[in-house]
Every structure is written in C-alpha cells, then in structure tokens.
C-alpha cells in the first residue's frame, strides 16, 4: 500500500517537473520569437496590400488605418469585413477590402480588392481558397495572371451587365474546366465595387473619427443586418 502510494507520488512529481520544464521552454521560445512573428505578420500584410495598391498612391499608415464593414449581400459574409483605407495628403486615396466570394466551387474564396477613390480597381488578389488544384486555382497570381484582368476596371468599364464571365455574356474570361470559380470572383469584385460606391464617404469618415480610438467590429457596423 505504502509502496504504491510512493509510486503514485513519484509519478505526480515526475509529471509536474516535466510540465514545469516544458512550460519554461515554451515561454523562452515565445520570448525569443513573439516580436519577430508579430513583425513578420505585419510585413506580410503590408506586402500583400501593396500587391493590390501601388505604394506611391498613398502616404498614411495603411495597416494601422482599418475599419470594419458589414454587408452580407455585397461583401459576401455575415462577418465584419476588414477595410484598409489609404489617404494621400489627408485626402481619401484608395480602399482595400478583405472581401469574400462566398460561392466558390469549394466554399468561400478570400480576396483583397484594392479600389482607388475614383472607383477604379487597382488590383485584386486571392488570399485564401480551396478551389480544385489545376483548375480553379488559376485565380492565384502564383499560378496564372488571370486576376490582373481586373486592373483598371470600374463599375462603368465594363458596364454593369458585362461584369460577368464570358460564359454568362460578360467580359471576363473563365478557365477551361472551371467556370464556377471565376464567376464567384467576378461577382465578388463587382459587389465590392458597388459597396465602395455607396459607402466611400462614410468609410473614410469613420476612419478619421476612429483615428485615436481602437477600431471595434461590434460598434462600427455600417449596415446593421
């Protein structure tokens, strides 16, 4: 009895010592890496934002100027969508939407859509998707330059009815074997433009108002559902 009790105590002690050592190791490596990880993430965000917006077009702290927009119909998700606002000499220059194309072949497709103040697309990139490799994944810039076809387009060019893939009578090409994926992306970019068209002033006002205040997705919904 006493023997098994001693065994049990030894087991508890061994696990406790190992657990403390493990926690110590993790806390040390966290200390070493946390700051670098944070910097990496911020750099990565900025790098991807620069893919859809020429850095010479703005002069503010882009990553730091964010608001949240809620519009399930136009922005493709019931969640708040992150919007980065670029200004130049204090004037609105462009906005970058982390929009969602909800009707991909394999679920939602995450996009970055850069629109300048005149409503012209500066760039579109796909940040995350689960489309079929070899077919739908041509929306990735690493695989094909299809998304660059949006550059320079706006709601008037092409006219709204032609904001569709060629198969639907629109101006945008689809890929061989995959129509659903490009269709979803084209619709999402178009809807983002429509949203931006209707909310541009409000977005920039909110960003200016929230300059010193922490942005909070709860309190800044544009269109409460």
């Amino acid at each position: 009895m006493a023997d098994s009790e001693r065994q049990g105590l030894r087991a508890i002690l061994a696990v406790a010592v190992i657990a403390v050592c493990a926690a110590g190791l993790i806390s040390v490596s966290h200390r070493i890496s946390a700051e670098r990880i944070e910097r990496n993430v911020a750099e990565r965000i900025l790098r991807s934002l620069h893919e859809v917006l020429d850095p010479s077009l703005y002069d503010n702290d882009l990553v730091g100027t964010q608001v949240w927009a809620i519009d399930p119909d136009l922005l493709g998700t019931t969640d708040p969508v992150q919007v980065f606002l670029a200004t130049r000499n204090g004037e609105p220059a462009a906005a970058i939407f982390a929009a969602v194309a909800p009707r991909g072949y394999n679920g939602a497709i995450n996009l970055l859509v850069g629109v300048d103040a005149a409503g012209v697309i500066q760039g579109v990139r796909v940040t995350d998707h689960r489309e079929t490799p070899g077919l739908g994944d041509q929306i990735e810039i690493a695989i094909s330059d299809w998304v660059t076809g949006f550059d320079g387009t706006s709601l008037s060019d092409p006219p709204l009815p032609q904001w569709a893939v060629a198969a639907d009578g629109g101006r945008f090409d689809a890929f061989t074997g995959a129509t659903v994926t490009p269709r979803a992306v084209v619709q999402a970019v178009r809807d983002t433009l429509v949203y931006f068209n209707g909310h541009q002033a409000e977005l920039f006002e909110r960003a200016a108002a929230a300059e010193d205040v922490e942005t909070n997705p709860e309190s800044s919904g544009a269109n409460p559902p």
Partner: protein
Amino acid sequence: MSEAAGNNTAMSGAGSLFADGFWRNNAAFVQLLGICPLLAITTTLVNGLALGIATTLVLIATNSVVSLIRGALVPSVRILIFVLIIASLVTTVDMLTNAFFHDLYRVLGLFIPLIITNCTILAQAESVASRHRIDHAALSGLATGLGFAAALVMLGGLREIVGSGTLFSGMEFLLGEALRGVYLNLPYDGMLAAILPPGAFFGLAILIAARNYFADRKKTNPSRREEAAVRP
C-alpha cells in the same frame, strides 16, 4: 545491461543502427508511421524536404531528452511524459519557424504542430530513447528522421514531377528569395490526380513496392546469410 550490449557492438552498432532507422525499419515505408503528414504535405519536393528536416530535428531532440531523463521515468506515466516533451519541443520548433522562416511557415502551416501526432516520434521515445544511452538514442533519431525525410522527399518529388511537371519549385521558401523561380520545368503540364490526395496514396504505394523490390533482391544475395546471422 543495454550499456554492455552497446559496447560489444560499438563499431558495427552505429552503422547497423543507422541502417535500421533509415532503411530496414524506415518509418514511412516499412512501419507506415507518420502517414498523415506524409500524405498531406508531399505535393512538392520542397514541402517534403522542409517537413522532413523539421521532423528530424524534433526526433533528435525528443530522443535525446527522453534518453537523458530515462532514469527518472515512472512507467505508469511515461507516455504522458513523452507527449509533454514532444509537444513542448514541437511548439518551440513551430514558433521558431514562424519567426525565422516565415514564408516556409506559411506553406507548412498546420503541419508543424501536427508533428506532435507523428507516431514515429512516440514510437522512438518508447522503444529506443527510454532504453538507451543518449548517443544511441540521438543517432537512432537522426537515422529515423532522415529515413522519414527521404520518404517525404521522394514522394514529394514523384508527385511534383507527375502532377505539376516541375521539380524543386518553392526552393525560395527554404533558401531565400534569390532562388525564386529557379526550378526545373519539364515539358509536360502534369497530371492533376498526382497532386490530389489519391495521388499521395498511389505514390506511396509505388515507392513502398519499389523499396520492397530492392529489399527482396538484396536478400537473394550472399550477404543475406550475414543479415540472417545478425538477426536470428
């Protein structure tokens, strides 16, 4: 007792220990352990290589640590202790990769934390590291890790060639931006199936069959007797 046995075969021991982990008991091809990351990550050679390196580092570290504390191990909670050690070391590798190889981390993403679930590592801790000196344990970890990495590289290379018609793409994630765009582009567009999950199973099956073929051919050689004598 294991010390004495270790000393007796000290010279041939290291070589045979290595051959055991790398070839005879290859984690992926013979023991079929760690199949989850093996199948999931091997869409390119570089992905396979990166996960192979990470797994090897973790294996050497966990085997060494387990071997060092084997005297204090309590049998009833040993598995718990192994898992604690493995999990904390993998978490460390995860954070350091995120901090210092950020682009690579984005590719391997989920699979570095999943190294924790690689049964090879637990099997090594249980059957080798907790019973042998640290040098033996570390060498076994190295051999097993390299064997696993070789399997990942071969399967990744095979699937990349057949599936995408490229080889070594993504080298910039491992070796820096200078190598972006430097890869073999074969005059062939690739067969999608090899990149999709079924391709992983087919590729693994082909490689296991090839390994068995070579292993069998070796057995019919005269050297077979030697092998038989070592392992009666």
